[in-house]
């Protein structure tokens, strides 16, 4: 289980890195999306991986915390996902505006000399 999750994080992050090193703004956008998946999964995995552990508590008495999924990374990642959406939107608008102003979708705003 752990190996697969770690490998998944690695593959997502690596693909993201490759994309943000590319020259076109859309590639960078997709790269950031992939990297944010990887980072969210990474933060989430810090709470260890629990399959089929209840995320909800039903009875306050006789509660053993070890029987439940770790809520803290979940709460952190939840807001990270929503904020991630906001930054994607901001990047997209900047990307469109830059394209409109400079006439190119190169990240530097100018086409590199051939």
């Amino acid at each position: 289980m752990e190996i697969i999750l770690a490998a998944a994080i690695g593959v997502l992050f690596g693909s993201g890195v490759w994309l943000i090193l590319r020259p076109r703004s859309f590639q960078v956008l997709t790269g950031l999306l992939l990297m944010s998946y990887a980072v969210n999964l990474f933060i989430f995995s810090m709470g260890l991986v629990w399959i089929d552990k209840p995320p909800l508590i039903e009875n306050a008495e006789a509660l053993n915390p070890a029987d439940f999924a770790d809520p803290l990374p979940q709460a952190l990642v939840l807001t990270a996902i929503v904020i991630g959406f906001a930054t994607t939107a901001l990047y997209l608008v900047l990307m469109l505006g830059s394209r409109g102003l400079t006439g190119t979708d190169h990240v530097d705003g100018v086409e590199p000399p051939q």
Partner: protein
Amino acid sequence: MILALLILLPLVGSLIAALLPSNARNREAWLSGSVSLTGLAVAAWQFPAIKDGQVIRHEFTWLPEYGLNLVFRLDALSWLFTILVLGIGFLVVLYARYYMSPKDPVPRFFSFLLAFMTAMLGVVLSGNLIQLVLFWELTSITSFLLIGYWHHRVDARKGARMAFTITGAGGLCLLAGVLLLGQIVGSYDLDVVLASGDLIRNHEWYRPVLVLIALGALTKSAQFPFHFWLPHAMAAPTPVSAYLHSATMVKAGIFLLMRMWPVLSGTQEWVWLVAGAGVCTMLIGSFFAIFQHDLKGLLAYSTISHLGLITVLLGISTPLGIVAAIFHTMNHAIFKASLFMAAGIIDHESQTRDIRILSGLYSMLPITATLAIVASASMAGVPLLNGFLSKEMFFAEAVQIGGTDNWWMSWAALAMGIFSVAYSLRFISVFFGPKAEDLPQIPHEPPQWMRFPVELLVLLCLVVGIIPALSVGPILESAVIALLGDRAPIYNLAVWHGFNLPLMMSIAALVCGVTLYFILRQFFDLRNRTQVPVLHPIKGIKIFDSILQNATVAAEGLLKVVATRHLQPQFMIILIGLLGALLLIVPLLSELQLQDVSAIDPFFAVLWIIGGACAVAAAWSAKYHRLAALLLIGGTGLATSVTFLMLSAPDLALTQLMVETVTTVLILLGLRWLPPRLASMEKELYEHIPMRVRLRRGRDFFIAVFCGLMIAVVSCIALLSPRGESISEFFLLKSLPEGGGTNVVNVLLVDFRGFDTFGEITVLAIVALTVFALLRRFRPAPESAVAPRQQTNAVDPAVQQTTAEHVALGYMRIPAVYLRFLLPFMAMVAIYFFLRGHNLPGGGFVAGLIFSTAVILQYMLAGTIWVESRLRMQPYKWIAWGLLIAGTTGLGAWFLGYPFLTSHTAHVTLPLLGELHLPSAFMFDVGVFMVVVGSTMLILIALSHQTLRSHRQSSPPEKDALSLRSSI
């Protein structure tokens, strides 16, 4: 409290002055005048208390853990400077009322002037060295603003910048020196420092401390080799020059040397450094002054020279020298302020300050001329005037310290005296001679109150000069006692001391000075000379300019080497840095104790084979197949979502799923504005990839693989390491009894970490508004504005229809029926997820996203115009109300005496529904919900409106019947 009041008064005055209308000259002057007069009265009232060497101290706690408190301290020395600052300040305000033209924006002037007064009072009243440096830098900043007051003029800007660079840099040296001093003494408190003179002088850091503090003082009081900023600061309005260069700014340096005199002086280093700089300054200053053609320039160099004189006196450090230094500080302030004001009157009345043009002014300005002549005589050291007294004391000290070994000291003093006489004559030469014919304006006597400050100051020159012991005796004596303590010498403030050597020197200086002036005039063409003889190569300004220029060039060169404006190398450096940081963990790997790997779930394996393949494929295709890449990324997102679900995080899974949907719609809306990029169009490039590109791709591929590998290894180690202590347990245990909810994640978000969530929804709102604002300004690329090929194909009947017609009659009729039915159901689902959030997976974030999706679907189906004619969302109102609700819920706790965002749960029993569980966190969650809906909608709608805008540009306006602006 009184002392703090002294500083607060001009500060408050400055703030009020800034707010008055720009033509309120009289009100500004009344305000500033009454501020300085009140201050003066308050200060004068303190004199009996500090007369006999007592010190008034007020301490306010500031940063006690660092030994830093706000200490205000008034002794006789700082009292003397306070009176100078406030007294001359008052006269300058009065003068400025008439000097400033109605066209000048006076609020700025008086506001800066009062701010400067605050800073200056802060310097002299500080009882803590750090605090002193703080106010010191404030004088640099405010003087910068004052000198550059006429910022439309190049010389004013340049002069201000130069003064600020020099004095600001000096201030930094001073700070360093003071910090070292604090380390030596162990306290920054002035009284403690003043009591540790021997400790400081014998410390190994004495020399650096001395040099750094002296640098601060010498730059401020324009001593050689930093003197050149002062003449350039003459670009300021004359009241500013009269204030800054007679009584305040430059005297701050003198004040610092006096303040530090008890602890730093008494060594060879002090004498050579301070007296050496002083001698050079006074000679250079007085010699240069003779050859100036600008009245204010002459006064500027004369100021430099007189400051040099005071510095020499402080440097040679004899007790009588200190008396002379304090005395001359007062005298110089009095006569120099009046001379600056007289020069200002001449400038104001005749519109020129050029000595070569001005002549015969006596007949036109008889009273001003008389006043200026008396003040100049004081500057030259003519008997029966105050300048004479202190200059004679200076001669006496120079002779005494000079003796036979340092004979040059006496000669330097004499030379300075001769030059002073010569430049004073040069100054008053404008009143004599033939009446000038070619003046830009015929001068008249100024208004009475403009001349009043000059009259008063000249009267003071006479009073002090004739009856010194009666007029300033007590003040001088108490200041001397404050500085010297029991070393205070016995001196006699009399006009007549008999025929002695100093008197001879005074007479010789007068005679030689007059002779020198007339020789220069007759034989050396003084009137038209453009170059100072002999000393003209001494040009600090050239060195200053070349240093600045070289620094700029060097900075540019350095930027070329170490910085880049290209994004890709920056990303690469960041990533390589990240990898480097990760490599640091390698040595720790051997100490790891890893758990066993748990069994592999085949479903999970397959899931991530697909997810990973999607990610790699997206990376592969993002350049030429954007839509495909977008869909593939959606696939990865789904895999992530399912992972969250499998690993016991249903809330995350839900949120991820919804965000995935909204993000995809968002990017789809943006795709059409990107330039077309087809592999077939770049076939040439595609087939013959140059070596350079291959290498670059290889390098990037290597970095990507390495980064992925590293992060995988790190996560693997983290996953397999035993759990450490965590605060999660606390949340699990307290969630139900104290948060009142069984869904711990939601309770965490809206209750335990409510403040964080509040911050996060604020960020979300800001981003949404930013996107909206940017899209109002930005224009997407015009070449993308033409309708795509699918919409211009003549064969397709849909091309002729509007989007609304598609829905009503065309292709979209059947989906439209479904989707419109779906809207209330989706809204219901959103409410359901929202309501159950506290106890079951759901909550404000998820519900907000579901609701947004529901509305977005309608937009996608029927187009913006159709939806907005029926449903006015006004998303910014959702954002505003959401933030307001969340904020008020938090504030509510305040009114009940709890910290911000403390949650409270109410249980209400209602008929039919039974017992209702109503935590205040519920209202907070409503706020979260509304902000999420508003932000998402605002972003998406703003983006979709771009299409309408481009249609509006390309097609006639009647299609665009609706007022879209009102709906968004």
